[in-house]
């Protein structure tokens, strides 16, 4: 797509805002519409747009498949890890109420962190977002990569 100057310039301008919007949806999901899943998909859409316009290889450099494969697992790990942390702090699995004063008790952090429930929701949504974004980008890679291998 080297000859499509308009597409290249427009997407170059748009992609940072798409990624920023994805982060907004991710971390503002407890106040406005959206959450981890939507944010992950929007973030993936930004990378996929980059791959469509600048080529698959360019996208593979900024989001390497080997890193994405680990991120898929990392998202689920963050989610379950939050659950395990609440258990270690003395609560039930995924009972975030104990997070604030259970895990970070006595540290400077405790008074500056959001409420336990809020904190737990932010963490698990982050896990969901990471997994969804990585899965979507990797599926796009494998679909688009088959075309070239033929």
């Amino acid at each position: 797509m080297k000859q499509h100057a308009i597409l290249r310039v427009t997407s170059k301008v748009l992609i940072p805002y798409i990624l920023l919007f994805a982060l907004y949806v991710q971390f503002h999901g407890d106040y406005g519409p959206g959450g981890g899943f939507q944010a992950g998909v929007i973030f993936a859409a930004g990378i996929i747009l980059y791959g469509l316009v600048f080529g698959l290889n360019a996208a593979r450099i900024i989001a390497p498949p080997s890193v994405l494969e680990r991120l898929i697992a990392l998202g689920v790990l963050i989610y379950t890890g939050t659950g395990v942390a609440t258990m270690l702090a003395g609560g039930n699995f995924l009972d975030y109420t104990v997070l604030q004063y259970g895990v970070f008790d006595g540290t400077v952090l405790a008074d500056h962190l959001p409420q336990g429930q809020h904190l737990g929701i932010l963490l698990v949504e982050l896990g969901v977002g990471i997994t969804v974004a990585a899965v979507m980008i990797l599926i796009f890679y494998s679909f688009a990569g088959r075309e070239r291998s033929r």
Partner: protein
Amino acid sequence: MSLTDVATQIIVILLLALLVGTATTIVRMRDLWAAVMLTGIFSFLGACWMLILDAPDVAFTEAAVGAGIATVLMLATLALTSREAKPPPEFPILPILVVFMAGAALVFGTFDMPHFGDPSAPAHTHVMSEYMNDTVPDVRQSAAHRDKTHDEHDDSQHSVAHHGVGVPNIITSVLASYRGYDTLGETVVIFTAGIGVLLLLRGRRERRDVEEDEG
């Protein structure tokens, strides 16, 4: 009926008519590339429709997944196949019969469903009212609640039932906190689906490379 209501009604009717029109066009179309583009438009119209139903979270997902990523994936698939659908048989009696019966069963099923926004619908009478009551007041007294929690420092075993979640978006608090187990399951489903798709697609390519090397 106020002017806004009339305007909303007109928009609703227009949107639904466009949805039906797009769906009919997709079915009658043989050019797959145009059909893929129309499915994207269909998803976008669906997102607008969900926005009117006050479901911005679902509209978000529909616009991003349905109109965005699904369209790209289908276009990538089109690059591997032909762009024209095979012509259907002259008069497909059996498929038409099956489609009509399935459609009739679905319409029959909607007769038992509660009306939109019905307060006595099962979804609103069970635990949902508790969730909403617990979440919203805690938002308004968020600061006070936080100080209170701080004072009851030693009593770290607060339960959700007594204190609520304290997150303004009820959908997020239900998804991530009250129904945290379900969302964990969904995340694991996405994880498993992603791994499965990757193994299927990647495995075949490597096998072909090996065959080429041998040949």
